[in-house]
């Protein structure tokens, strides 16, 4: 297991129609390091179109950056040998946003777990495999008898997301790349999910890159946070510092835009549509699709 995942000057451009330059820059010179030791939770927060999901795809090796590099244990992930690449694929695990899209609706959910066992050669024996699966399901607070043998449509969104966490638990990666994993879950299930991630950090020493647009989730997780705007990281630091003493105007705007639950603290200023309009252009980038596992 390698101890570091590093982005060095990553830039990602997409071709786009109707833009003078012929492309848009979704990720612009982004550098950061995720350390496995000590395990940490690092949140990447920004609004839609800011480039945060593209960064997830770069880190996971699903999209090769147009410039810069993603390093795993000091080596470029797009230049790894076969064996190194296999190790990287096991050690860096994704959790995607949509608990519907990641499952093939024709297969029982067990398959996602058995496939992981098989692909990564965790065990050859069926009984040992089942034992591992059941243990991991319990670790994410699912009862094996309630989920095994079911089809994706028979489970709730929260259950499906936790199955993906069970898969992560089985593989014990050093890094989890979670791209908006809770944005489709309601408040209570969301808290459940976040608590499991924090458990993983504490008990299994997993480092999580948590990508979200929701500041209250970031606040709940704690740890470190990076704020991204228009493809650039504009502010980074411990959650408590960034949330209480934001230094960048964009972070301030984000924090001020959280509706305060106080009718006497209504917004007095307006924010203009124009300053947010660039999203129309950003939208021209292909929407990242989560691959079916």
């Amino acid at each position: 297991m390698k101890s570091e995942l590093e982005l060095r000057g990553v830039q990602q451009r997409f071709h786009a129609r109707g833009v003078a330059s012929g492309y848009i820059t979704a990720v612009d010179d982004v550098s950061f390091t995720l350390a496995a030791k000590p395990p940490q939770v690092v949140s990447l927060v920004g609004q839609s179109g800011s480039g945060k999901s593209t960064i997830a795809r770069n880190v996971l090796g699903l999209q090769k950056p147009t410039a810069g590099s993603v390093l795993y244990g000091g080596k470029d992930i797009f230049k790894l040998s076969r064996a190194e690449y296999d190790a990287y694929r096991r050690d860096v695990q994704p959790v995607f946003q949509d608990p519907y899209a990641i499952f093939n609706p024709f297969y029982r959910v067990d398959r996602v777990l058995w496939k992981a066992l098989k692909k990564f050669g965790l065990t050859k024996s069926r009984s040992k495999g089942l034992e591992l699966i059941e243990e991991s399901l319990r670790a994410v607070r699912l009862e094996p008898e309630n989920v095994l043998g079911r089809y994706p449509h028979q489970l709730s969104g929260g259950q499906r997301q936790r199955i993906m966490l069970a898969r992560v638990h089985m593989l014990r990666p050093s890094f989890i790349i979670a791209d908006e994993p809770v944005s489709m879950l309601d408040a209570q299930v969301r808290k459940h999910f976040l608590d499991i991630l924090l458990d993983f950090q504490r008990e299994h020493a997993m480092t999580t890159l948590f990508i979200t647009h929701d500041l209250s989730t970031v606040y709940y997780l704690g740890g470190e946070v990076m704020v991204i705007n228009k493809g650039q990281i504009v502010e980074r630091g411990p959650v408590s510092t960034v949330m209480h003493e934001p230094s960048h105007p964009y972070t301030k705007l984000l924090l001020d835009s959280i509706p305060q639950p106080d009718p006497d603290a209504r917004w007095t200023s307006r924010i203009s549509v124009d300053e947010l309009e660039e999203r129309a252009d950003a939208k021209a980038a292909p929407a990242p699709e989560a691959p079916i596992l």
Partner: protein
Amino acid sequence: MSESVKESAKHKGTSADSDSVLEIKGLDVTYSTSRGDVQAVRGLDLAVRRGEILGIAGESGSGKSTLAVALLRLLKPPGKVTAGSVMFHPAGRSPVDLLKVNGEELRVLRWSALSYLPQGSMSSLNPVMRVQDQFKDVILEHAPARKDSLGELIPRLLSQVGLEPRVGRMYPHELSGGMKQRVLMAIAVALEPDLVIADEPTTALDVTIQRVILQSLADLRTDFGVTLMVISHDMGVHAQLVDRVAVMYEGRLVEVGDVRQVFKDPQDPYTQQLIESIPRVGRRSS
């Protein structure tokens, strides 16, 4: 400020004063399941005043969306309205009981008097129609007399929600979540309805866009004099936008009152809990 609190005290509760757009009385909605009936809305009494923004608050499963679909007559089996009346007073028309009108009569009311603003990130727009054609669809269906003014009307509606006329020629997939929500808002007010029911209008949008949408919703009332009923689980949205809040819990209305009174001096223990459970993030603005 103290004046508005006083005023609210006068109007407090559900007493229907003469200028109500909507008076809901004793509404019961039941879902039949194989394990017996579930009452999603129980004996609900509520009046919506003309020109106000009324918030409906409550956690998931409290019955707030069921209330919305029941009012709009969009409730699907196994859901069923089992009791109550909903008197609707559109300006310049005779009052009707929304639960009794049917067919053509209902179709005429829809959109021109009573419209719906759905959650925009969901599949509310037709993916294979240009935005302007979706406007035409609605307008021609509910107000065919406006056919000749369409060319002028659509750009005007779009500009009212801060969108350029070119958006009319775009397809939904070319729009961001916030733009889609604003298109839906423009469609909702296209025929100057008396009442717009907005179901979680900002859920699934990020905070800055949410702020723009809340601004635009407030503008709808100022510019069009629309009465708005805004359903949201987010107490922050209510605090920022609405005049009065109705709090629902397990299908019942536990409290209705002026937004300041509800937040500063909640009368019901559940409302108190709801307000205390709001996570507060970071520094206070202002």
